[in-house]
């Protein structure tokens, strides 16, 4: 395996950081967060501890994501919020499913 390929694998499935920053900006705006978009750690959990979002925030964010990217988020139930494990997980999901 080439050095490039292995590095790519280590980072996979990283989305380009522009999309991550854009989503972080939408989050800060839609949820009136007390932090700046750049300060959101792409790997930190969004839900509960970490950024401190709760299920109402997740619902608000799901609406923003459906309107901006045409992605309808799905889960088995409200406790299965893996997409919101981190900003990067959310961005990866949107990149893979966006229609806008």
């Amino acid at each position: 395996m080439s050095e490039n390929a292995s590095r790519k694998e280590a980072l996979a499935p990283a989305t380009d950081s522009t999309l991550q920053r854009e989503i972080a900006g939408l989050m800060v705006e839609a949820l009136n967060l007390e932090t700046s978009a750049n300060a959101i750690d792409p790997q930190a959990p969004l839900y509960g501890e970490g950024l401190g979002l709760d299920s109402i925030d997740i619902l608000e964010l799901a609406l923003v994501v459906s309107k901006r990217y045409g992605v309808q988020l799905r889960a088995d139930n409200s406790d299965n919020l893996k997409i919101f494990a981190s900003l990067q997980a959310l961005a990866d999901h949107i990149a893979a499913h966006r229609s806008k």
Partner: protein
Amino acid sequence: MNASDAPGLDASLPLIGHASELSVVAWRRGRPVNAGRFLAEVRHLAALLPPGRHVLNVCTDRYHFAVGLCAALLAGKVSLLPSTQTPEVIRWLRDFTADAYCLTDDPACDIDLPRFPYPAERPRATGCWQVPRIEAARPAAIVFTSGSTGTPIAHAKSWGRLVQCVHAEAQRLGITRSHAPAVLGTVPPQHMYGFETTVLMPLHSGAALCAEKPFYPADVAAALARLPRPRMLITTPVHLRALLQAGVDLPRLALCVCATAPLEEALARQAESALGAPLLEIFGSTETGQIATRWPTREVRWELWPEVRLQWQGEQVYAQGGHVEARVAVNDIIEPLDERHFLLHGRNSDLVNIAGKRSSFGYLNHQLNAIEGVRDGAFFLRDGQPSDVGVSRLGAIVVAPGFPAAAILRELRQRIDAVFLPRPLLVAERLPRNDTGKLPQDALQALARALLQRPGR
């Protein structure tokens, strides 16, 4: 009066109201569960439950919750239904009752009580169709309100009164054994509204509950589409707003029911048109249970359950009659119209309702001030526009020299439900208390505005 017309007055009441062992009691993962199987699973679990008398039923699958509730009843136990399960609430519950244990269907459950996992193996349906009867006077559940101090208040609900309430509800919603819908809820079964409307009402009207609690709008639409007709949706203004704004295809329903906060008429109209069904609102509280309904696109006034009456003593309103055993205070601002109807004008000022979860400033302030390092602190309502799904959050100001706001927030998260966490938590040198030590909301809000405008924020 025929005994079956007055369920609250009978000495005992059946565990479920379905007509035969083949009646559908629930829908789970797209498949029906009939009454015979349901009762077999209830008996199986009842025989396995540990000896403690109090069961904290935290099952997230609504079918598991219903089996757990009925098994507890059959085994002579009482279900505990706190509206939130923060470590502080669990600590308080352990003091409230020493023998409580937790019935859970989540392998990752970390509630600090003895835990009893919902059994994985399923018993064979026995084929013996006999619905157990439960003594009406027996306490079936204990529900909790936050009260105006730091201590929750327990409200015991007898089996007879719970069933009497949901019989009145089913009648008002037009649900009978011959018109028995599949009932999908976006609210948890542990919340009083969800407990009554998504669990007890289907079990006692011959309807079918749905195990799922879909969260995202696309999940709600898909779960509804999977159900046979007639089908109904039990939801809240927050979930309904999200559902209507998400741009998903919605199936036609027989009925939509909404509660926990008043719904604007325009939103009700939009929902009726999108769902092709009437939307009814329910009014109630943890203390009284459900007591009235309204069809917001037709009428502004609320209609009480047939046997429930409101009384006034000065400014304070009380409900009594029907399933409301003793006179119970109603903490809303209500204008009487006639014996059966009223207008709702809002909530008393100490009460807080965020996205359908209720607490009081008294309780929240007590929890904030109980944190080590906090010398003074108070919550306030944020002014400004509610969010897209119609939620306004709280803010709080603390005086806590030497303790960073982040540490106080971490501790607060252990104590109160996440929806009440302050946004923002501001730090001040003192609070604007008046001569009597009181903190007017407008003074707090003014201080908050000043703190928010400080440079560096």
